[in-house]
């Protein structure tokens, strides 16, 4: 039964998020619309296992959510309703789901509102998970490594800012669009990164943030088919997703890139990712943004038949560009690894010197030192890396390395 229940919950959640966008426009209040969709979803989850899923679950949920919205508006003394146009409220009493093109515009409006650059990235990410992905407060708190009351408080503050500061429910004008698309892409990418590289803890969360991010990325790409940046973000995510089956072994242990079974990489995702990257680069006429550069690096890896046969000088060149366009410790660290492959361990260690230390920095340095046969230093570095935050799988991997180096240095 759990399987059926999960599929049901998934349908309710995905359809609910779709319905929400239109409801926000009709009611003009994010909180009421969210509550209405949530109440309708609860009814569905209660009744559907008994009565069976209706023939058109979307239409069913739409009508149920509209009724709930009317109930809530009545309860609230129609205060919100008085400020709305009559036409909008007539839409609430309709029994057909809105046509696709209306939903499309509503979804874009909701995306641009929830991902407005006047909101902090953390607030945007949390709100996107709530309104665009339809996650519950408990799920959001779990995936963003915080507790439910703190998350509820943050979301309430965010909705209050949207209402008080009048963040518009509107698709930005053509002139504003490039900047605003950037804020949206930042949210999608942050979601994926949070799912792809959880900082600590075992993976015991029932939602897959990477899947959510990819779904959102595909939606954004569909809604803004001419924009280069959504294509680049989606390309980056798909090219990274493609390697996922090979990244962890059956025991749940980390498999580093050089040990991965490349036949397990998802060829279809790689082809999609490369196609999107090509489209995106054509649209920007070769002037690359950080997403395009990271996608290009992932594409370069996907092209190589083996780790050894990778075009490392090209990868270094791409990292050089990335470190110029968007300098970050993470990019500088990955660049140092590529330099070690292209120009030798010594050059890699030298490149590391300029990067601020972190647990990942110590781990990378340890592997380079071990490769140079400097085991005592490598053991010291990997021990330092274990002081920081890392996933359990990553910790086990480093502990295995340490044990091996201890054996090596003893002989």
């Amino acid at each position, binding site marked *: 039964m759990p399987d059926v229940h999960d599929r049901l919950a998934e349908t309710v959640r995905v359809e609910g998020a779709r319905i929400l966008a239109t409801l926000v426009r009709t009611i003009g209040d994010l909180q009421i619309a969210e509550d209405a969709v949530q109440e309708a979803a609860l009814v569905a989850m209660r009744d559907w296992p008994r009565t069976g899923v209706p023939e058109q679950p979307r239409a069913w949920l739409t009508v149920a959510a509209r009724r709930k919205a009317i109930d809530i508006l009545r309860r609230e003394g129609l205060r919100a309703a008085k400020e709305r146009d009559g036409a909008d409220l007539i839409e609430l009493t309709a029994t057909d789901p809105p046509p696709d093109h209306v939903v499309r515009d509503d979804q874009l409006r909701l995306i641009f509102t929830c991902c*407005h650059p006047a909101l902090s990235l953390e607030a945007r990410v949390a709100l996107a998970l709530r309104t665009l992905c339809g996650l519950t407060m408990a799920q959001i708190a779990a995936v963003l490594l915080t507790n439910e009351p703190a998350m509820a408080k943050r979301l309430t503050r965010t909705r209050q800012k949207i209402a008080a*500061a*009048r963040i*518009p429910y509107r698709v930005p004008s053509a002139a504003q669009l490039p900047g605003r698309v950037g804020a949206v892409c930042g949210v999608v990418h942050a979601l994926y990164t949070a799912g792809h590289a959880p900082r600590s803890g075992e993976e015991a969360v029932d939602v897959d943030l990477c899947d959510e991010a990819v779904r959102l990325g595909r939606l954004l790409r569909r809604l803004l088919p001419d924009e280069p940046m959504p294509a680049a973000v989606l390309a980056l995510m798909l090219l990274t997703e493609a390697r996922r089956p090979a990244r962890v072994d059956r025991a749940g242990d980390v498999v580093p890139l050089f040990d991965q079974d490349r036949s397990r990489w998802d060829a279809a995702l790689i082809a999609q990712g490369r196609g999107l990257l090509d489209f995106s680069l054509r649209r920007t006429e070769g002037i690359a943004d950080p997403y395009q550069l990271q996608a290009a690096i992932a594409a370069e890896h996907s092209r190589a038949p083996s780790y050894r046969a990778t075009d490392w000088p090209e990868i270094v060149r791409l990292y050089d560009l990335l470190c110029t366009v968007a300098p970050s410790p993470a990019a500088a660290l990955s660049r140092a690894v590529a330099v070690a492959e292209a120009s030798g361990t010594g050059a890699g260690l030298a490149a590391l010197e300029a990067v601020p230390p972190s647990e990942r920095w110590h781990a990378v340095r340890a592997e380079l030192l071990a490769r140079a046969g400097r085991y005592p230093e490598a053991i010291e570095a990997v021990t330092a890396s274990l002081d920081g935050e890392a996933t359990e799988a990553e910790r086990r991997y480093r502990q295995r390395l340490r044990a091996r180096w201890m054996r090596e240095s003893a002989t």
Partner: protein
Amino acid sequence: MAQYLALTYTADVNWFDPEHAEALTEYRQFAIQDAGSILASAVLHPTSTATVVRVTGARGGDVVTADGPYAETKEALTGYYLIEAADLDEAIAIAARIPAAWDGAVEVRPVLAAK
């Protein structure tokens, strides 16, 4: 329409010093260009002229005054514009034309509407 207070944070200077005459002209140009959206505005004397006032305990308590600004910061509150805009996007567009936006920062705060 909604109201927003655009607070300008810049270097803590005396705007009537001749050396700031040119900068003040830029602010005046903004005020003329955006006159349709500006409901009120003011330029403030430097924070060295500020007095912090507190009343101890509750209403009617002792009035305690202290010299200087409430908080010592690199950029100080140097003026404000009360603006009217349809939504935050419009308010941001107006705020971005205030010279303080590139000489420091502008904080845009929605004004609580009277019920």
